[in-house]
């Protein structure tokens, strides 16, 4: 091929290059009626399956078919009418009827009198489209898999929830059975130390039961509201007292503590209250026991106070089970306890650290 210096190659060379180009190309005659095809290259004939004689002189819409997008065709028509260049992808059809994705750039070519030709360079994008379709299919498949997995997980969760309810039901029922056992045995035991001990145990189980009942009742399995516990506990304690002589009062903030602390706190409060009622008011002495709990910076402060005879005045208690239990439980919760003669009565102050509960 000869190359002329400085300016563009001669038109014959350009036409030759276009004719041999592997990219399909079309030139239409803008001034002839219905903008017919004036020239096509071999690549275009190969891509569409038509012979040059079958396509030259006709409008390019002959390549459209049933699934060709009407909106895209309208855009092309508008661009051609306005003599503006446009790039689109259009579904076209070969002579044998098979469709292909034709990405084309249509450019108006003007001379002094206006638009003379439209030049269209094209590319077969069928593979790209197929990839997109495949990708969409893969996405759909993935979504279907995720749906199936989600469904399986919800079913598993439902099963676990049912199991949790079943276990919760059994624990509560068993607490009732244990308490019934204690009380039945107490009823059949003659009045005295053994009977008192059995009744004491039944009461402790009762306090644990109250804690457990409140634990899962609100749907929040992770926390326990000390205020709710206190009001139920108070009602239970006062029901067993002669209201003319003894009274238990509570001023407990609605502190949310971790569920794991429900049982030890319930035991602790029960033990201190029952202890006060048992030892602080001998010989028909009247009095009251007060329970107070409030949040502190790092945990909670619990005060159990009575206006009874005071620590020093109480006869030494060799068994001392209640006090042992209290100190054990406080240690378990990593708290501190101070017993004080308050004159009158006894004050027990307990500090318990709490994890950053809500």
């Amino acid at each position: 091929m000869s190359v002329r210096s400085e300016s563009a190659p001669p038109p014959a060379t350009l036409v030759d290059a276009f004719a041999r180009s592997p990219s399909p190309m079309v030139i239409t005659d803008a001034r002839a009626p219905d903008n017919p095809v004036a020239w096509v290259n071999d690549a275009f004939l190969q891509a569409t399956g038509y012979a040059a004689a079958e396509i030259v002189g006709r409008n390019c819409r002959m390549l459209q078919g049933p699934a060709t997008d009407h909106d895209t065709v309208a855009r092309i028509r508008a661009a051609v009418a306005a003599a503006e260049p446009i790039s689109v992808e259009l579904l076209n059809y070969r002579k044998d009827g098979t469709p292909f994705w034709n990405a084309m750039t249509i450019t108006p070519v003007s001379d002094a009198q206006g638009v003379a030709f439209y030049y269209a360079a094209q590319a077969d994008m069928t593979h790209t489209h197929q990839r997109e379709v495949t990708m969409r299919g893969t996405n759909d498949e993935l979504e279907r898999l995720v749906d199936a997995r989600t469904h399986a997980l919800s079913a598993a969760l439902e099963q676990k929830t049912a199991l949790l309810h079943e276990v919760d039901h059994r624990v509560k029922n068993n607490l009732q059975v244990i308490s019934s056992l204690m009380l039945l045995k107490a009823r059949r035991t003659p009045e005295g130390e053994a009977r008192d001990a059995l009744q004491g145990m039944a009461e402790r189980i009762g306090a644990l039961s109250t804690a457990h009942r409140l634990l899962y009742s609100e749907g929040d399995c992770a926390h326990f509201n000390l205020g709710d516990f206190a009001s139920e506990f108070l009602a239970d304690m006062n029901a067993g007292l002669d209201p003319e002589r003894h009274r238990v009062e509570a001023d407990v903030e609605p502190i949310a503590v971790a569920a794991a602390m429900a049982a030890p706190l319930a035991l602790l409060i029960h033990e201190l209250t029952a202890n006060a009622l048992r030892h602080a008011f001998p010989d028909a002495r009247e009095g009251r026991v007060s329970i107070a709990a409030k949040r502190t910076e790092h945990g909670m402060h619990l005060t159990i106070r009575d206006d009874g005879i005071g620590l020093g005045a109480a006869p030494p208690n060799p068994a001392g089970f209640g006090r042992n239990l209290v100190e054990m439980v406080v240690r378990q919760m990593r708290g501190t306890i101070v017993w004080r003669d308050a004159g009158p009565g006894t004050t027990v102050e307990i500090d318990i650290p709490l994890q950053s509960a809500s």
Partner: protein
Amino acid sequence: MGTGNADAALRILVVEDEALIALELECLLDDLGHVTVGIAGSSAEAIALGLSTAPDVAFVDIHLVDGPTGIEVARALSEDRRTTVVFMTANAKRIPRDFAGAIGVIAKPYSERVVASTLDYVADRRAGRGAEAWPDGFLPAPV
């Protein structure tokens, strides 16, 4: 415990499949001055005893020998207007929205105090005395 009103003695049917719980409850009802007219562990027994004794009050557990049939039992027993039905269960989540004719539920594990004060409340209601406040630990059916 309780008001101890002699005139408030109630005739009570206990529908409970756990023998120990039923026995202890019977003792407690006796202490409170009430009368246990029967103990049923299955739904068939419960419904038959309900028909033959027409109790004032029925305490009904949800889970019985023949499954979670306490709901049906409550529905059948509350058809008799003379009977006040109270659920007594660790399975309160299974109670339908309409409470199957029951007036409320005592959640297990319950304390003796809740049983006593619930019976006082029921007695007041049955006698037409204004009992606006229900006891702590008893959950009334939604109206």
